């Protein structure tokens, strides 16, 4: 298409061996996922637990071994990098985790925690590092005096600010946010989301934003992909996604996330999926959503649908996408 995007994920597979005996079992955590994130934009992945969204994030960060596929940062495949070359890449690729209580070393002071990535990846003088730590604390809205405190002396929201400061330390181009606000209280969540938006505007950051909360995703993301059992089943720019979603699973997610009221009540009957996802070990042959889909036909159980384009940048993997009219959500 155009110039290479900041991040390009191409045909990514991540499989885990679950057991060898009595018979081999493989968890298909990520099964052929492709997407691209242009510089300065936010790409959202939504899905339920077990859909592979966190594994995708970890594979992009090179935190889990990939089975197949390519991950290109600025056109360069980072899948086989290691040692110094991988360190170089990590400068421009950072991550914020869900739980700010377990992602900070409890025995180190905040200043030290923020300085760590600078020390490991950038080799600067002590004074330079200290100045940078002060600047980062200010950028995330913490007092300079916070540098001498331990993680347990902060609240959850402040801890997440600390994690953001750490992620910003090496001036990355892309930050992977894996459920970065879902452990926070709603009032604090708004503060952190605003902080992420401000930092993006100031520094031209790109985010890979993993969340299960469609409201948050609509607010934050330029483009959204829905994952189900290791595969992207629908992907679209924000406006197309939220005005005319095409996959029955997306309808189910949206119905569940609608604000309470008569609209949700009326859509619930026909569009809310029943049951729970099947196991990612030996996933079904046909459409993976077939067992829960209200619109399933025989073909869905036998033949896996491919992602097809139905609009500019709008992709959907459903055999019946042109047969069934999407529900009217607004």
């Amino acid at each position, binding site marked *: 298409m155009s110039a290479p995007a900041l991040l390009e994920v191409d045909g990514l597979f991540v499989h885990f061996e679950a057991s060898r005996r009595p018979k081999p079992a493989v968890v298909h955590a990520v099964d052929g996922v492709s997407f691209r994130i242009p510089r300065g934009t936010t790409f959202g992945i939504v899905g*339920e*637990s077990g859909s592979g969204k966190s594994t995708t994030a970890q594979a992009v960060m090179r935190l889990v071994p990939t089975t197949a596929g390519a991950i290109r940062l600025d056109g360069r495949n980072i899948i086989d990098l290691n040692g110094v070359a991988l360190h170089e890449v990590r400068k421009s690729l950072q991550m914020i985790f869900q739980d700010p209580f377990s992602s900070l070393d409890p025995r180190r002071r905040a200043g030290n925690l923020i300085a760590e990535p600078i020390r490991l990846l950038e080799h600067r003088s002590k004074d330079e590092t200290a100045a940078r730590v002060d600047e980062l604390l200010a950028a995330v809205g913490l007092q300079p005096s916070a540098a001498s405190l331990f993680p347990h002396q902060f*609240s*959850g*929201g402040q801890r997440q600010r600390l994690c953001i400061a750490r992620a910003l330390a090496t001036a990355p181009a892309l930050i992977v946010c894996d459920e970065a606000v879902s452990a926070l*209280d*709603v*009032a*604090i*969540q*708004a*503060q952190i*989301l*605003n902080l992420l*938006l*401000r930092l993006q505007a100031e520094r031209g950051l790109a985010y890979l934003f993993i969340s*299960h*909360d*469609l*409201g*948050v995703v*609509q*607010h*934050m*993301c*330029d483009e959204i992909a829905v994952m189900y059992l290791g595969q992207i089943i629908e992907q679209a720019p*924000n*406006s197309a996604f*939220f*005005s005319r979603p095409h996959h029955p699973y997306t309808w*189910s*997610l*949206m*119905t*569940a*996330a*609608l*604000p*309470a*009221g008569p609209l*949700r*009540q009326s859509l*619930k009957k026909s569009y*809310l*999926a*029943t*049951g*729970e996802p099947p196991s990612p070990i030996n996933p079904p042959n046909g459409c993976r959503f077939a067992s829960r889909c209200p619109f399933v036909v025989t073909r869905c159980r036998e033949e896996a649908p491919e992602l097809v384009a139905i609009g500019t940048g709008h992709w959907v993997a459903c055999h019946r996408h042109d047969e069934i009219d999407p529900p009217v*959500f*607004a």
Partner: protein
Amino acid sequence: MSSDPVLVLDDLSIALATISGEVPVVEHLSFSVAQGSTIALVGESGCGKSMTALAIMNLLPQGFRCSGGRILFEGEDLVAATPSRRRALRGNRMSMIFQEPMTALNPVFTVGEQIAEALRAHQNLGRRAAAARALDMLRAVQIPAAENRIKAYPHQLSGGMRQRVMIAIALACRPKLLIADEPTTALDVTVQAQVFDLLARLQEEMSTAIILITHDLGAVADIADDVAVLYAGRCIEQGATRVVMEQPLHPYTAGLMVCVPHLQPGVMAARHRLLAEIPGMVPPLGQRPTICAFSDRCTRVGNDCLSEPQPPLFTLAPTQAVACLHPLQRETTA
């Protein structure tokens, strides 16, 4: 409205003993819940909503105690009741669903045994009769292939299934009162909707009173009749859910409503706009002022807020009460 309330909290206070004396955790909380109806306790972590639930169940952790007020369950004051009386009620007439179904279930017993345990302890059922009732309960909470799942251990079930088992245990003895402490927070959105539907259906069948504890008001609007918003251990707004959600009077409630980015299908302008945020954070335990605890985060704060003690709840509309010196204006609707 309906019959006598199942539970009345009358000016309940809870305190935590520390080295430097007792620290208030919950102050002067009053509400009631009638048979078959639902009240939601809403607030941020640390506002005392879970402690209120544990006090009703008599499960307060060591160091916490009810320091004032009464808990009236069907007219009987539980604060004064003996431990054995409380034990006889708990799991029988009143029961609780916890947030994290993995840690609340016992990993070394099958789910069938855990449901039967409540029945055998409280209803004098034999092993066989209890097992049969346990199977009925599993079916009632819509677990597919219940006759096989009754022999399953908690780790063999998904999060949604585990929470259904928790509900089956809690409702096995057909309690008058059910406390659900963030029952769906650990679950996926589509499963959340299923669990809420299930709770609503079972409530209708058994006409159980439900106290629902949550931090997201929007999520419970469908099923809660009344709502009490807690802030720093004090109730700052209370009323019928529909009224409070349509027209919150306390600045904190209003802030809670707008700071959540709710899904708005079909709306294009929602992206990349900064959310309305409530600056600052809840004062920590032991540092709560006697003046309004929200005053340092409030945009409507006046001099009287900083000098006078926090006002008690006063009724502004027939079904709405607020504890604020400068409440938001109530629009008069034609």
